[in-house]
């Protein structure tokens, strides 16, 4: 794809009880958020395996957003805390391999926060747009060929 009309492609892992419902609410309130995000519904942000994020980046996705319930609000009591811990670890790994921090973000959005969800997605996509296409693994593949 030409660099000039490049559009970021990002994946959002949204938890079923809070963020996915928040995104749903922003939709039913007719709020606009960038179409660049493809949402994958998961039961809980604690379900997110770091492998999901790595596999997405490896296959040319430009950014991954993980969003769960606010601390203390997890439908499953503690899933979002597990997610936060895993995220802290994977963040260091990503930094080490040279992935910009804008590409992988974590956020808390409640089911009632439709406007916030739209805002989070908007800011996230803008951040990814700024750092440009995710070339890291693509270029490496080329070297290997």
């Amino acid at each position, binding site marked *: 794809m030409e660099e000039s009309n490049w559009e970021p*492609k990002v*994946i959002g892992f949204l938890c079923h009880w809070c963020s996915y419902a928040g995104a749903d609410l922003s939709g039913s309130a007719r709020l606009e958020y960038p179409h660049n995000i*493809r949402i*994958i519904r*998961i*039961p*809980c942000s*604690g*379900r*997110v*395996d*770091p*492998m*999901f994020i790595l*596999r*997405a980046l490896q*296959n*040319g*996705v430009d950014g991954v957003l993980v969003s769960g319930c606010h601390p203390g609000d997890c*439908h*499953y*009591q*503690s*899933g979002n805390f*597990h997610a936060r811990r*895993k995220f802290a670890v994977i963040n260091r790994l990503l930094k080490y391999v040279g992935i910009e921090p804008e590409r992988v973000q974590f956020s808390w959005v409640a089911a009632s926060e439709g406007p916030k969800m739209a805002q989070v997605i908007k800011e996230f996509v803008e951040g990814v747009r700024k750092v440009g296409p995710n070339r890291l693994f693509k270029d490496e593949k080329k070297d290997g060929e």
Partner: protein
Amino acid sequence: MVESSQNDNIEILTYSEVEEVGGYIGNFEVKIRKKARLVDLEKCTGCGTCYQKCPVKVPSEFDMEMGMRKAIYVPFPQAVPNVPVIDKEHCRMFTKGKCSICQKLCQADAIDYEQEDEIIEDKFGAIVVATGYDLFDASVYGEYGGGRFKDVISGLQLERLISPSGPTGGHIIRPSDGKEPKNVVFIQCVGSRDVEKGRPYCSNVCCMYTAKHAVLLKEHLPEVQTNIFYMDIRSPGKNYEQFVQRTMEQFGALYIRGRVSKIYQRGDKLIVKGADTLAACQVEVEADMVVLATGITARHDSKEVATKLGIPYDEFGFFTELHPKLAPIETVTSGVFLTGACQAPKDIPDTVASASGAASKVAALFSSDRMSMAPLVSTIDTSVCSMCKACMEVCPYGAIQEEEITLRDGTKKKQLTVLESVCHGCGACVSTCKSSCIMLRGMTDEQIFDELMAVAQ
């Protein structure tokens, strides 16, 4: 209480505490400590000779320490069972080693000083938590005297004064000198809606019980003038607003919108200084008695109870329901239900409604031999599992348990298994499992990777 104590299907264990809760929905294993009341439940006839003759007098907890009880006592007149209990801390048999008046006088031979705590272990299908609340301790309010003034009492103390079985036999008198009060000030929101005292929530019941007290006072003492300092009148229940209006119009209660800044003694009167925010001025009321509408707080030991039951609680110690709107009775631990003020401040109709709700939830649960559950739960591939047990630690429900199986050649082997009735399908175990042997049905790694690859195309 009496009716339920006579029902064959209901066993009431009073003076008992839950020690341990194990198991899961339909199969709770509960250990209960039945504390030694030192009076034989079977033998006692409830004649009352023991507590009439007991020589030790102690301030009565039920009368809010305004009256006295004996060291062997029935907590309140309608107590079920109508069997007294010996207060070991005050009984002369235990403080001085001799007395035994009650034992000598008891014709049924029911007094047993040697009785010990009994541990009951039994299986239960469901648990309903109805541990109630504690009254807010108003002594933290220095501006209201902090407990120094005898005539500054709590709403519950006034309730005991009004009660015919109370310490004064239903005569409303000042605790300090026994005179009938002429001018009574009520202060609302004591320990409610006060961020500085760590109680930002509304206690729900105080507006209505203060209005009721104003009515009862006027009915008992027609000469009395009631003044009520309030922040807002919250009367959202059925017919509640009409009741408050009647309190003002028919029973002459004077509602003053504002907080009280100070109470001090002048002669035998209490001077209440406060603001009237509607008239935008300071007011000073000369009162004979001040009644504080103390709010509701969670039970002091609610956190320990929550830990035993495996249910969450909020920052104030109230138990957390599964969903604030759609599942206000269920908890995250299936089979444990909440009712009454242990969940949040509730008045009587709300409590009765939630209790009926919990009873029907339990009845519905027990009505069939099998339970229908959402199938989206975790399963463990035991052939790959390395038994690291990391999943057990992250599971918020304790759904993953160790079991022992016998192989075909007779050897025994330990393995992990998911209790499907307990698992909620959050998937925390799946992403924690290092050997990828746990699968969340309907949300497997393969499914998510396929979704991901489709998006990445």
